[in-house]
Structures are given as structure tokens and as C-alpha cells.
């Protein structure tokens, strides 16, 4: 397939996944706010930290991390490239440039989502209760789009680039959420078990849609198990290990190289990253320091992304001297 098309498919999926994650984070925070008894802690500021774009937010709004400012920034601000609106718009622009390579239902779905979000943007940020349904819609849109992709498109090279983009984005987002929330909760680790902290931990799991599945696996809320689950559970579809493993499978489908070996830089880097995770334990990670671990994980995801660009997307010059 064309390099340009592969690039666009990869990014279309990263943007869709990003929009979905941001909606989930906002939805969870809205819930948390409703359950919170007193305003002892501002959830919204930490949400901006999850994005890694706190500086940009401060430039726009100063230190006013009120719900209105944060939700508007993360949802509708077109000057912020990772807002939901920006992501959906970028996903649609990418889809528009490769309409011939994706299926019509995929294009029509993404187009309708864009229309919906842009109409909401024109009406402005909805009140909290209405907002719930808007963010639920966007969140579901991500899964619907993935379902449409799976069911209307051949599971070919283009489809594997879709999955690759989606899974790397997901690995990155789950790790960011874990990093920030864990950091906030850490000082009060000895107080684990108070109802308020319990809510916070539940919110963290919900941010990866992982709450119910965590309960099935471990039962009690326990920080060490939560880290173990979100980083290392191989079966739950939003954990870091699962995402990276799926990405690796797609990458090898694209090149035809057997798993466990590599034929290009992207495969080498992703293979190293996956094995490092697969052979770690929650205790290792916590004793090394979760923040350092995740920081290094995120850098490596960026390196993989860069290697994918160099291997597949970069417009190669014509062969010289032939």
C-alpha cells in the first residue's frame, strides 16, 4: 500500500483512540466530582496533567483549573491539538484523504461523529448532566468505529496499520493515567481503605474501563494489584502489556517476519519493549519506582513511533545510480 495512505490510517486510529480516552477521562472525573463529599481536592488539574500538556493549559487559562475551563480545553479547544474536537477533526481529515482505502461505513461513521462534535462545539460546553451523555457518546464512538473497522474492512496491511496506531496510543494513555493518579494518591498510601481513596482508585480503574474486570481478578482494591493489572494483565484489552503485544502482532503481520525475530528498527524496538514488560512483576516495578518505569516506557513508545515512521511512511527518495 502507499506509504502516505499507511501513515494516514495509522494517525486516523491514533486520533480516534485519543479522543475516546479523553472522553473516558472526563466522564470518570465528572462522576468522581458528583460522588465527592467535599472539595478537598481538585480533580480537574490532575486531568490536565494526564495529557502532558499542562504548560499549554496554563498559557491559555493560567492556574484556573475549574471544571469549565478544563472541560472546554480538553474537549472543544481547536487551538489545542489533542482536544476531542481537534482529534476527531484530524481523524476525519485523515479519513478524507484515504476514503478510497477504508470502507464507506468507516468514513460515514467518522464523518457523522465529526458533525456531532462540531455541532456540540458550536453550542458550547454542556451542563454537567448533559455532558455525561455527550462524553458517553464519544467514548462509545471509539468502540463503534473499531467495530465497524473490524467488520467492514479486510484484515489486510491497512487494517494492521489501524491496529498498530490504536494500540500504541492506548498503551501510552493507560500509562499516563496510571502515572498521574498514582502520584497523587501516593502520599496517602498508608490511608488506603478510607472511602475517599477507594473512590479514587476506582476512578483510576474506570479510566481504563477496567474496574469490573479488576474486581473479578483481584477482588479487593489494592494499589500493588492495580499496578499489576493495568500494566501487566495480558488479557484485559486496555493494559499496557496487552496493547503493546497486539501492536507487535500487527507489526509482524505487516512485514511477515515471525514473532520473536525482527527485520526492521520498528520491530526491534517494539520487541524489546514488549519483552521488558512481559517479564516484569508489579513488585519489580514498584520497587524501581513506578514513575521512573512509566516515564521510560513512554519514551520507548515514542521511539517505536519514530521507527515506524522511518520504516514505512517516510517518502523515500528514488533509488540513485540505477
Amino acid at each position: 500500500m502507499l506509504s502516505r495512505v499507511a501513515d494516514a490510517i495509522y494517525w486516523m486510529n491514533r486520533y480516534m483512540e485519543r479522543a475516546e480516552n479523553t472522553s473516558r477521562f472526563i466522564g470518570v472525573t465528572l462522576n468522581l466530582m458528583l460522588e465527592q463529599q467535599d472539595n478537598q481536592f481538585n480533580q480537574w488539574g490532575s486531568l490536565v496533567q494526564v495529557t502532558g500538556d499542562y504548560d499549554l493549559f496554563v498559557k491559555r487559562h493560567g492556574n484556573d483549573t475549574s471544571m469549565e475551563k478544563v472541560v472546554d480545553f480538553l474537549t472543544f479547544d481547536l487551538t489545542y491539538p489533542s482536544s476531542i474536537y481537534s482529534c476527531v477533526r484530524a481523524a476525519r481529515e485523515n479519513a478524507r484523504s484515504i476514503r478510497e482505502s477504508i470502507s464507506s461505513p468507516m468514513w460515514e461513521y467518522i464523518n457523522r461523529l465529526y458533525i456531532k462534535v462540531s455541532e456540540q462545539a458550536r453550542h458550547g460546553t454542556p451542563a454537567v448532566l448533559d455532558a455525561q451523555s455527550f462524553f458517553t457518546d464519544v467514548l462509545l464512538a471509539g468502540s463503534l468505529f473499531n467495530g465497524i473497522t473490524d467488520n467492514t474492512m479486510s484484515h489486510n496491511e491497512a487494517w494492521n496499520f489501524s491496529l498498530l496506531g490504536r494500540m500504541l496510543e492506548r498503551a501510552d494513555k493507560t500509562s499516563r493515567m496510571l502515572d498521574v493518579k498514582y502520584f497523587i494518591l501516593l502520599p496517602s498510601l498508608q490511608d488506603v481503605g478510607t472511602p475517599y481513596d477507594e473512590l479514587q482508585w476506582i476512578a483510576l480503574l474506570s479510566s481504563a474501563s477496567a474496574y469490573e474486570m479488576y474486581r473479578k481478578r483481584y477482588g479487593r482494591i489494592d494499589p500493588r494489584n492495580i499496578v499489576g493489572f493495568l500494566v501487566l494483565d495480558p488479557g484485559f484489552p486496555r493494559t499496557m502489556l496487552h496493547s503493546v503485544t497486539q501492536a507487535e502482532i500487527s507489526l509482524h503481520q505487516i512485514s511477515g517476519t515471525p514473532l520473536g525475530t525482527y527485520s526492521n528498527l520498528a520491530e526491534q524496538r517494539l520487541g524489546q519493549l514488549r519483552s521488558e514488560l512481559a517479564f516484569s512483576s508489579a513488585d519489580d516495578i514498584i520497587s524501581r519506582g513506578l514513575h521512573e518505569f512509566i516515564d521510560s516506557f513512554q519514551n520507548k513508545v515514542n521511539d517505536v513511533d519514530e521507527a515506524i515512521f522511518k520504516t514505512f511512511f517516510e517518502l523515500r527518495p528514488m533509488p540513485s545510480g540505477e
Partner: protein
Amino acid sequence: MDFNHYNNDGFYDEMFAHDGKPRPACKALFERLQSLSEGDLVRYQQSAERALYNMGITFRVYKDNESVDQIFPFDIIPRILGDREWRRVEKGLIQRITALNLFLQDIYNEKKILKDRIIPKDVVYSAASYRPECEGLTPLHGIWCHITGTDLVRDGSGNLCVLEDNLRCPSGASYVLENRRVMMNTFPKLFSDLRVKPVSDYAGKLLDMLQYVAPESSYTPTVVVLTPGIYNSAYFEHSFMAQQMGVELVEGRDLVVFDGYVHMRTTTGFQRVDVIYRRIDDDFIDPLTFRSDSILGVPGLFQVYKEGRVTLANAIGNGVADDKVVYAYVEKMIRYYLDEDPILPNVPTYLCWQPGDRSHVLENLDQLVVKAANESGGYGMLVGPHATQAEREAFRARIVANPRNYIAQPTLELSRVPVICGDHLEGRHVDLRPYILYGRDIYVLPGGLTRVALKKGSLVVNSSQGGGSKDTWVVMDSGTSDGTQPAETPHA
């Protein structure tokens, strides 16, 4: 829907004869429309528009620093052609394309028609779109006009004439296909009763044709569609056609020439390309041969084309036959190359480079339509009767300064069709653009795109000038249905 206040206003109406009765082929449609309430019709119209919007069949307009996507205006009342008339149109188009193709082959090679003084040499060589680079070139199978979108209009007495040939990059076929998809949801019952001739096999025919004209036939050729990119106003069509054919849509930057062939850049390296359905104009297609400032094209493409190692559809150099002065000679071409009488006439045309015609044009600017010879899309045009004195004077100066560049035609009383205006119907002027594919044989898509001037009284149907479109149905002349009309609801 009440037609009592609908008035032909003395124009030829596609749906109603002069006595106000529906034409035979339109009878079933008329009855169906009558059975609908005004509210139903408006609702159908809105649901069709919503469907087109959701399908993303839109173009982008910029206002107040904001970009908004809009659909191309579409009216759900179809334009109907009886099959007897259609068969004549089809024959006429095939005849015309055959002659035009022979003309292009001739003027870039033997030049018999010039030597026999049927067409003055100067007329051809002074055409801005004549390409000296194509001298001595014969495209594969001698085919130049692979895809044509001929513009037909009715004169005051209802005869269909050819207004323009459009042998370069005619657009609009995708709207025919998408309009049809929406219409089948809007009037499903009527559709099956009338047995409207299908258009859905167009993409398949297009792909067959493109594979047929490939340089070598021993393997399955790689066909691509070449687009200027997502900011082009016809981008939707480029991507739609590529998708429907199942081929890659490429931009200039995806293609590279080396080792004497054209290649596209893929994730697994370079892949050879055999046929390019190009939607980039001659001027921009190869900066090494044509405009050197083009960033849309592919450097070196023309050389590969000239050596017969890639096919371009349409051929380079076709524009000379689209020149509006050359157009005036097409009837003569048909007689010269085919020894036949033209089936579809031209619109009478005055050539300003001829002194006699010129003085007639200058004396009658208030009655004529004046056009620049090398423009299309409704640009560079004066509609005399609707123009101001100042506009007419400006054109007078331009004609005198550069007579070769202008022609004039009588202001045609284009035929009209009913369109929905708020809660009632009004007549609006239309043309018809059928699409013709020239491969192993010549295929004409039944019907084509009906373009409609939505502004009251306007004669300019181009989408760039406020025009919309309608689905075009070719049906049996009897136009019968069984007369019973069960209620139908759009699926959309």
C-alpha cells in the same frame, strides 16, 4: 403536491408538454408527486440532503474565518428522458466522440484535415490548449478521449444540441452515482415500477476501459487515480472513483519516475504503475515538460508517456478540441472523417476572429452569450441580455483586443424542470452531461448528470456559479406503471 400553479412560462419543460399535460415518460412520476402532500415532499427533500451530508458528499466554503462543509445542492424531483430520445442521443454522442478522437490523432500526426483546408491551420495552432509536445504521438490503441462529459442543452424548440465537449478532465460522474443511491431510497417503488436504466456499473466499465488501454496486456495492469489532493473541489469524486474501482488514489508526491517507468511509493518499496486516470490538468502534470512551478505533478512523467510505458487517461493535448473556436468545426469533422451527417447539432456559433462574425457580435452584444475560447466552468462569460451596459462594454474591449479568444452564441432558452422551492414547485433551467467511455468500444452512461440553475431565471448551471443537480432517469416512453400507488416512505 399541487401542480395547479406550476407554469411553463413559455419555455420547453422537461416534465410537461405545452398543453400543461405531463409528457408520457413522466406520467408515473407526475402521479406519484400528486399523491404526496407538500409536507411529504419537503420531508423527502430534507432526508435526502441529510443523507448526502452524512455521506460526506460535501465541499468546503469559507466564511467569517470559519470553514463549513456544504452539500452540492440537490433536488429530488428527477429529470426524465424517454428511451427513444435517449437512443438517438447515445448514437449522436458515439458519432461525435469517434470524430473528435480521429481529429486529435490527425492534428498531432498527419494533419489531413488541415491540409484539406476543412479547418484553418491557424485556428488549431493558435488554441492555447494545443500542445506542440504531443506532435507525432499516438496514444495506445489510438485512444485520446477515454472519458468525456459532453454538455447538452435544448434550444427553444426542444432539440438537444451540444454546448461543450469536455475532453480534458470532466467531473460529475460520482454525483450521478451518489444521487442515484439517495433517489433509490427516496422513491423505491416508483423506481422499480419504471425500470429506470441502471448506472451502478459505471465504475466497473471505467476500470475495464482503463485496463484495456494499459501498455502491456500479459498481466493485470496497475491502475491509479491521480488527484491534486484533498483541497481540490472535485476531491470527493477522485476518491470515490478510486474506491469504487478498488484502485489506489495517488497524489503527485506518491509517484516517482526512474528506469523509464512510473512507480508509486509503498510501504514495501516501489511499485510500477501502468495506467493513470489523471485528474490534474496538462499544465500541472509534469514540471519538466509543462509548467515548471507545478508542485502537483510528477517530474519526468511526460517522457515515460511519450515512450508508451504508461497510459494517461485522458491523453495530453485533448484541450485543443475543447477550444470554443475549434468546437465550431466539429460538425465539419464528423462529415470529413465519418462521411455522416451529425446526429446532434452544435449550437450556432459566431467566431470573432472572422471580421463578418465579429461585427455582428459587436452589434448584438445585448442578445448574445459571449465566451472566452479557453475557459470552462462558467468563467469568462457574458450573458448579454442579463448583463449591465458596463459589463458589455468591457467585453467589447476584450473582443476587439483579442478576437481569436472569443466566440458568441445566441442566448438559448434552455429547457426547464420543476424544482422544490419552499413549499411549491417552480421551473428552473437545466443542461445534461452524459458520460462516455472510450475503450474496446464506446459506452454511454444512461442519462448522466442534470445540472440545474437554482437561481430563478438564471441560465448558468455550473456548480461554481450556484448550480445544483438532479438525478436523470432514462425510462420507457410509455412511462407506465400499474396506476396503483401504495404509500412509500424513504428508507433514509
